[in-house]
C-alpha cells in the first residue's frame, strides 16, 4: 500500500501573462520499503514536486495523501503535525542548526514531538549504522560534509517517519561518496521499511533505486521499475 501518493496534481504559479504551470497532472505513489528516484534537469519541477509531497505547498489541483491522510482536508497546524510525525526531510545543504550539537539536534525533536520518536537503543543503532555514534558532542561546524549529511539523515529519521524525502542528497559529492549515499538510502528503505523518495539530477543514484521516475517540463513518467 502506498504511504505517499499524489493524484492528478497540477501546480500553477502566477496569473495572466505571468502564469506558469510547473506541474501537469502528476500522479505518483511510494510504498514502504522502497527507494523511489525522481530525476530530471534543473527547472523541470522536481523541487515543486518535493514541496507538494512534503505538504509545504498546497497544489492548485489534485490530492496528496500521506499515510492515509489527505493534506487538503487538514488545517495548517494539523499539516505541521502530520509533517512532523510522518515525513523526514534531508535537504541539499544539510541545514543542521549551527548552535546545536549533534545530540541536541535530536533533543530539539524530543521537545516538539513528545512521543513516537526512536528509542535510545534504536537511535544508537541508527547512529552506528550511519557511522556517526562518536559525533554526538560535536557542532555542525566541526563535521565534514559527509558527516553532516549522515547527521541530517539521522535527524530526519529520528521522529520515525514513514516517508523520507531527500532533496539532491548527492549534489556536492564525488563518485565514491555517491555510491556510499546511494547504498545508505537503499538500506534505510529496505531495512527500516521507509518510503524513501529522492529528488535528484544525479543519474549515478539510479542503480540503487527500486523505481525511477523522470520529470520533464512538469510531467512525471515512470522510466524504470
Amino acid at each position, binding site marked *: 500500500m502506498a504511504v505517499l501518493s499524489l493524484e492528478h496534481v497540477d501546480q500553477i504559479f502566477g496569473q495572466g501573462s505571468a502564469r506558469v504551470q510547473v506541474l501537469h497532472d502528476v500522479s505518483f505513489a511510494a510504498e514502504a520499503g522502497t527507494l523511489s528516484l525522481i530525476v530530471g534537469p534543473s527547472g523541470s519541477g522536481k523541487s515543486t514536486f518535493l514541496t507538494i509531497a512534503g505538504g*509545504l505547498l498546497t497544489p492548485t489541483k489534485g490530492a496528496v495523501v500521506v499515510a492515509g491522510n489527505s493534506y487538503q482536508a487538514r488545517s495548517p497546524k494539523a499539516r505541521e503535525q502530520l509533517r*512532523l510525525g510522518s515525513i523526514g526531510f534531508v535537504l541539499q545543504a544539510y541545514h543542521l542548526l549551527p548552535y546545536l550539537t549533534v545530540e541536541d539536534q535530536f533533543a*530539539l525533536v524530543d521537545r516538539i514531538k513528545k512521543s513516537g520518536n526512536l528509542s535510545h537503543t534504536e537511535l544508537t543503532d541508527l547512529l552506528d549504522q550511519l557511522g556517526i555514534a562518536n559525533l554526538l558532542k560535536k557542532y555542525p561546524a566541526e563535521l565534514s560534509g559527509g558527516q553532516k549529511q549522515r547527521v541530517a539523515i539521522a535527524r530526519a529519521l529520528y521522529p520515525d517517519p514513514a516517508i523520507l524525502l531527500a532533496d539532491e542528497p548527492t549534489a556536492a559529492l564525488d563518485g565514491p561518496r555517491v555510491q556510499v549515499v546511494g547504498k545508505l538510502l537503499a538500506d534505510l528503505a529496505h531495512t527500516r521499511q521507509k518510503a524513501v523518495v529522492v529528488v535528484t539530477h544525479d543519474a549515478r543514484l539510479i542503480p540503487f533505486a527500486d523505481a525511477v521516475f523522470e520529470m520533464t517540463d512538469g510531467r512525471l513518467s515512470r522510466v524504470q521499475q
Partner: protein
Amino acid sequence: MFLALKEIRKEKLRSSLIIAMIVLISYLIFILTSLALGLARQNTAALNSWGIDNVTLNANANVDMRQSLLTKAQAGTLSADEAYIGQASVVAKAKGHDNESAVFIGLDATQFVAKTVKLTSGHRPQTAHQVVADTAFEQEGYKLGDKVKLNADKTAYTIVGFTDNAKMNIAPVIYGKLAAWRTLKNLMPGPIASAVVSKDADYKASSDALTTYKLKTFINKLPGYSAQNMTFELMIGFLMVISLIVIAVFLYILTMQKLPNYAVMRVQGVPSGVLVRATLAQSVLLVGAGLVLGTLLTVVTAVAMPASVPMAFDVPILAGAAGLLVVMALLGGLIPVRAVLRVDPVSVIGG
C-alpha cells in the same frame, strides 16, 4: 527557551557583547535613577521629615522660603498643628574644618516641628546658642560640644545634637532657636518667622499678605528642583528608548541571520510558535543576564560610593527600572517576530 539557551551558549562572544551593552545601559540607568532620587531626597528630606501638609509664606516671596518674612499679626494664632519656621542660608565655620554651606532652620521648641526632629545623639537646643546639626557635620569630623560660627555672626553656637535626613536644597540643616535665626538675619523687630507650616490640610493663612501652598507645590518650586528632576527623567527616558532600539536592532539582525535555520525547522514541522518563543526567550535571557550583572555593578558602586555623594539606592524604584528594561526587551524582541512568522519553508527546498 531550549533553542535560546543553546544559541547563547554556542555564540558566547556575540552573546557576551550584547550582554555587555545591556550591562552598561542598565548600570547607567540604575546610577542615574539613584542619583536623581538622592538629589531629590536631599532637596526635601527635612521638609518630608516634619510630616507637614502645607507651607504658608509671604505672598510676595515667590514661593521661596528664603525670601519670605511674616509677622505675628499676619500669622495670627497658631494651633498645635502649626509651627513657625525661620530659614536662613549660612556658612558654618570652625577651627580645623572647611567652611560648610548649610541651611539654618529656626524653630520654636514648644511647637510640633521641633518635637519631630529625631536625634541620633545629644539633646535638643535649650538656649539660643545651641544647635542640632545634620549628621553630614558628624561625617566631616564635628563632635558634640564643638562650636561653630555662622556667617559673620560673632556668636559661637554649640552643637548639642545630631540628626539624620536633615537636608534642604542639597545642603545640611542646622536646627536652632527662632531667636538665633532673627540674629542671623539681622532683623528689625517685627518679623517672627519665614513661614508657618501646618499638618492640617484645611489650614489657610488668615491674612491677605500670606499665601498657603500645598507641600508638593512648595517642593516643586524649590530652586532648581523641577529642572533637575526633569533633566534626569529625560535622560532616563532617552536611555530606555535607546535600550529598546539597541535590543531591537541586535535581535533583528540576529533573527535575520537565522531565518534560513528557521525555514529548515519549519520544513521539519517545528511550529512557528516555538520559533517566536525562542526569539523572545533569547531577548529576555540576554537582557536578564545584563540586568543581573548591571545590578551587581550597582551594588558594588553603592558600597564603594562615599556618603557625601547624593545617591539613594531604592530597591523598589530600581526594580521598576529593571522591569521597564525587560519590557523594552520584550518589545524589541517582538519586532523581528513578524519576519519569523513569515518565514517560507519552501525557500530551503531546491538548494
